[in-house]
């Protein structure tokens, strides 16, 4: 099948409109999902049952059911209980809740990776649990969780296409519309494939940059003269071998 450039030109703007909505929905879902994930991670690790209980319940429900069913529950079932929200809002909420469960697991691992003594010294000096988290644990957790958080965010972007099923006119929906009008699935779906790729690749790229910056700062601190010497020595060895 040859690419009909006319269709790309004619329906490109419609696809781009969908792209814009996808961007907006994803943005708010991340904005809501990451803090929610941190909250759930902390709640799950809490010794207090009234924190841990709800956190575990939400985690269990959202981790063990398909995303599409969660979307349907929020969009089709909640109105029976008098809660009717616009599809876009449901989309943001569903994506945020769904991802927050995975963010929570990542954050939990990240918090657990910070040595116990770090928290103990903060508590021993008089900080509350929350103050210790904010000043000592979270700053040390970020470099650890950054790569998996990026992964989860990219998967959030991909899951957003499911929102087409509840009439959110995001990017996948706009491609379906273009296909319906033109009967040309190739152009419609190749366009959004590229755009999804661009979006996720930009996320991956910025996170890689951020990661490098964090690493540079850390390695500058950690690098001792001995390490420099060892590095020079191994470089010299490589040079000798390749000569």
């Amino acid at each position, binding site marked *: 099948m040859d690419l009909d450039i006319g269709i790309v030109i004619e329906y490109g703007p419609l696809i781009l409109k969908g792209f814009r909505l996808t961007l907006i929905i994803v943005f708010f879902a991340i904005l809501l999902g990451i803090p929610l994930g941190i909250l759930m991670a902390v709640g799950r690790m809490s010794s207090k049952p009234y924190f841990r209980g709800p956190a575990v319940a939400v985690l269990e429900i959202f981790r063990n059911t398909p995303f599409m069913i969660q979307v349907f529950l929020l969009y089709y079932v909640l109105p029976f209980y008098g809660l009717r929200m616009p599809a876009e809002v449901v989309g943001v909420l569903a994506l945020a809740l769904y991802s927050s469960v995975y963010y929570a697991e990542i954050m939990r691992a990240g918090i657990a990776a910070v040595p116990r003594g770090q928290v103990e010294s903060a508590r021993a*000096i008089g900080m509350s649990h929350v103050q210790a988290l904010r*000043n000592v644990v979270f700053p040390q957790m970020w470099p650890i969780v950054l790569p998996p958080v990026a992964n989860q965010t990219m998967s959030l972007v991909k899951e957003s296409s499911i929102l087409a099923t509840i009439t959110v006119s995001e990017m996948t929906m706009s491609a379906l519309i273009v296909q319906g009008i033109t009967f040309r699935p190739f152009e419609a779906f190749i366009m959004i494939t590229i755009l999804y790729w661009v979006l996720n690749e930009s996320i991956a790229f910025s996170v890689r940059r951020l990661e490098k910056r964090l690493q540079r700062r850390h390695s500058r601190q950690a690098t001792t003269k001995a390490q420099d010497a060892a590095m020079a020595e191994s470089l010299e060895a490589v040079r000798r071998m390749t000569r």
Partner: protein
Amino acid sequence: MSTEHGSLSLRGIEKSFGEIQALRGIDLDVSPGEVVCIIGPSGCGKSTLLRTVNWLEPPDAGRVYINGEQIGETVDANGKTRPSTEREINKFRSQIGMLFQNYNVWPNMSVLENVVRPQIVVLRRSRAEAEEIALPLLDRVGLDDQVDKWPDALSGGQLQRVAIARVLAMDPIVMLLDEPTSSLDPELVGEVLAVLQELAKGGMTMIIVSHELGFAKSVADRIIFMDKGKIVEDGSPEQILYDPQSERLKQFLDMLIHV
């Protein structure tokens, strides 16, 4: 029981972890300015004892008094006792300086920030005020040229001295030191001990869990030998080190000397 500033009293402290009884009724009075060293075989409960004093491990039974004030229980306006709130316990903790074997300096902030941040967060001092307190303290522990460094660039001895400055900035009433030199390279032990010695001379009340018998002998006013969750012997360094009474202490000292 003393209510003087810098006094510490323990009454009937008990603590169990599951089946294991770590502390079986500890009574201890430390007078202001006194330096008490706790020695004993590993697992004897000496670290646990320190950790119950500042409620990192709340004791199952017993009472802790600092300046005659009880930690963990508070007498309210009607004269009734109730368990202390988180906030009250945090306040107590800020008055008890604790040093750890692994220093536990925070790697996500500079040396200066390590000393400044807890003052701002816990004592609500302004940054300017906190820095004014931190800088002379860092000077006192010999780190005046390291204030802007990050912890990763420091040696173990320097890190422990950062931890000492960090604790001193909180104006502690007493200090608890949990094997402050045992993860240091031998050549770095001296610099930390010198700072601690100076603190002891300055009249700081200290309880030190340590294996440095030489240090214990030179700074401690009193040495306590613990075994199986109990205080077995309590006396002057001379008494404990040169004239042990119990069989267990004799064995313990023999073992240390032969190692």
